[in-house]
């Protein structure tokens, strides 16, 4: 029995799965230093090993299915506490049941992963709409977002296809990384304040377009049907700070 700590990467997590099989079964998997010192169950720090990670990766794809590999990867993007053990249980069940595992909708282990993945997928879909670009002086489109889950890389393809002739930066302000789109291709990279400052400010026309959008946003609502609860239900207010329509002028 062991409590593992890893570096927070997907490969690191797969290394833990490997250790669960070939070293000690895991009782807990942590991505951070625990808040209290553990005397009874000391934490084993696992260094990510590409070989071990690759073995587990391939085993999931071959012995379970590529559908489940993708599902596990998406579920891993969640920022919920305890996701690692939930995913591990799903993988263990998957190794026993094979590709049938995803049909066992009544099983609590499967249900848990359906919910975990569901929340991530829901947020990815939401952010296809909730991204707002500003056109900066140097012609670059910039958008800062703060999603709950680590979904940035799932947005790259969509915006690249949509803006095939633009340069754009889609910046996760909490995780300090960005998708950089360059006329039809994109990369994911770390980004800091200095790099952002070099892009310049938004120009005069940008302000005009934002005003027009805010005006449209306010005008299109039907007063007789005002329903802030319904609005917040679809678009929780934690997302509002990065949305142009809620900018205070």
């Amino acid at each position: 029995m062991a409590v593992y700590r890893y570096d927070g990467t997907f490969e690191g997590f797969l290394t833990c799965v490997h250790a669960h099989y070939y070293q000690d079964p895991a009782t807990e998997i942590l991505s951070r230093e625990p808040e209290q010192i553990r005397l009874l169950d000391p934490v084993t720090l696992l260094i990510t090993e590409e070989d071990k990670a690759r073995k587990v990766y391939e085993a999931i794809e071959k012995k379970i299915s590529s559908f489940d590999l993708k599902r596990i990867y998406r579920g891993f993007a969640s920022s919920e506490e305890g996701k690692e053990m939930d995913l591990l249980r799903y993988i263990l069940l998957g190794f026993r049941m094979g590709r049938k595992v995803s049909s066992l909708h009544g099983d609590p282990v499967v249900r848990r992963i359906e919910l975990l993945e569901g929340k991530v997928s829901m947020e990815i879909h939401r952010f296809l709409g909730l991204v707002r670009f500003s056109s900066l002086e140097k012609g670059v489109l910039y958008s800062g977002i703060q999603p709950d889950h680590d979904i940035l890389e799932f947005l790259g393809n969509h915006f690249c296809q949509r803006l095939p002739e633009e340069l754009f930066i889609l910046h996760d302000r909490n995780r300090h990384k960005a998708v950089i789109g360059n006329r039809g291709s994109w990369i994911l990279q770390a980004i800091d304040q200095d790099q952002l400052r070099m892009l310049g400010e938004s120009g005069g026309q940008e302000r005009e377009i934002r005003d027009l959008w805010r005006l449209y946003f306010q005008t299109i609502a039907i007063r007789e049907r005002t329903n802030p609860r319904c609005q917040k239900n679809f678009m929780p207010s934690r997302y509002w700070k990065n949305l142009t329509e809620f900018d205070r002028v």
Partner: protein
Amino acid sequence: MAENLMNKLKILADSAKFDVSCSSSGSSGEGKGKVGSTHMAGICHSWSADGRCISLLKILFTNNCVYDCAYCVNRRSAQTERASFEPEELARLTMEFYRRNYIEGLFISSAVEVSPDHTGERILTCLDLLRNQYGFAGYIHAKLIPGMSPELIHQIGLRADRLSVNIELPTEEGLKRLAPQKQLQNILKPMNQITSTMMEQKTLKAPGHMHPLMDPVAGQTTALDLSGSQRRFAPAGQTTQMIIGATGETDQQIIHTSEKLYHRFVMKRVYYSAYIPVSSSSLLPSTLTAPPLMREHRLYQADWLLRFYGFTAEEILPSEHPDLELEMDPKAAWALRHLERFPIEVNKASLEDLLRIPGVGEVSARRILRQRRVASVKAEDLKQMGVVMKRAKYFLTCQGKYYGGKDLVENTIRGQILMEERLRYRLTGGEDQQQLSLFSGPGNWIPESHETGREGRAWPSIAMTEPSKGS
């Protein structure tokens, strides 16, 4: 110029806000352009203060109207500010909004300035600028004006993803009374043209995804694949909308009309819009009347039963029950009238029968079927699968066991369900919250594809021309 544009935007968005549809679904990867793409399920970009999704720049080209329809804010006799866009102006605004990811595309509708063809040509110019000059490949929904020439409709259709013609009111009699300048035949003709053109290019797909046997276009070969930059005619199909509660029609007339529209024209959606009093006229409900939002909500539920659950209009609203119960959803009401068909054993029932169980939705029905292929379904699994057991327990058995109490007695179950509904509305802050959360949501999350039912019978006095089956 900026101030002028602000003013136009304000007037023409304000005039368009009562249009219901804002869906950007049903189209994917049509034509390549320099900017933009479409997403099969549609994407919502924001939600306005009324809780409705904002997906498209929903706007009128002009609100300067020669017609005088009693229910309309833009009728000629109304005292309201008037404005019209220039084609170039609206095309540029659309591009600027789109590039910043404010919107998924444009929903262009219009009042009739000078004549239907005059307005239509200006809209066509705008769409042509978007598609051909700016290389816009995002979503375009164009509302057609009854009376436009067929050639103009065809040209607009080649540039739009989705087309719609408003049926306006659920009965012909209502239309005659409130919109005397609009001829029913002028509304049906363009609908028919859209359907026939889609049949010819083999892209017609029935709404919802139920009952392939009843699908009017089942067995049709797959769409012609047009390669390169050529666009197809209205690849996301057609929709329509009608106003509810402005004339005295029954729910039965409304739902039968919808069924007929789905059946004859193979529409993707019929939208319902609770009448909001905009003018005092002896023909209309008083301006103090609250919009019938709960009724609208129940009609949407009934519409879902038509498109996704394999119900016919006759089943939902038989002549003994011409109106939907406001207190209970139409599926539960139907089940209570047909207790002889229950309980249904979830481990044996077909998809069609599972979908008839109140509390079992499409997603949970499909999960039950999938699990049954590898393991039997146990009672404790049902909740995990998303079945609403509080509702469903009266209508199903699981591995032979009934969980609904003593036996199936209509009045007892009805009492239980009503109590539950009342409780729910109280907990969620009244009926408005409930129905509005359904008002704009589902259409944009649920991908569209096929279904319909039997012959309807609203519109008794007119013969709708049957679209010719594709050769």
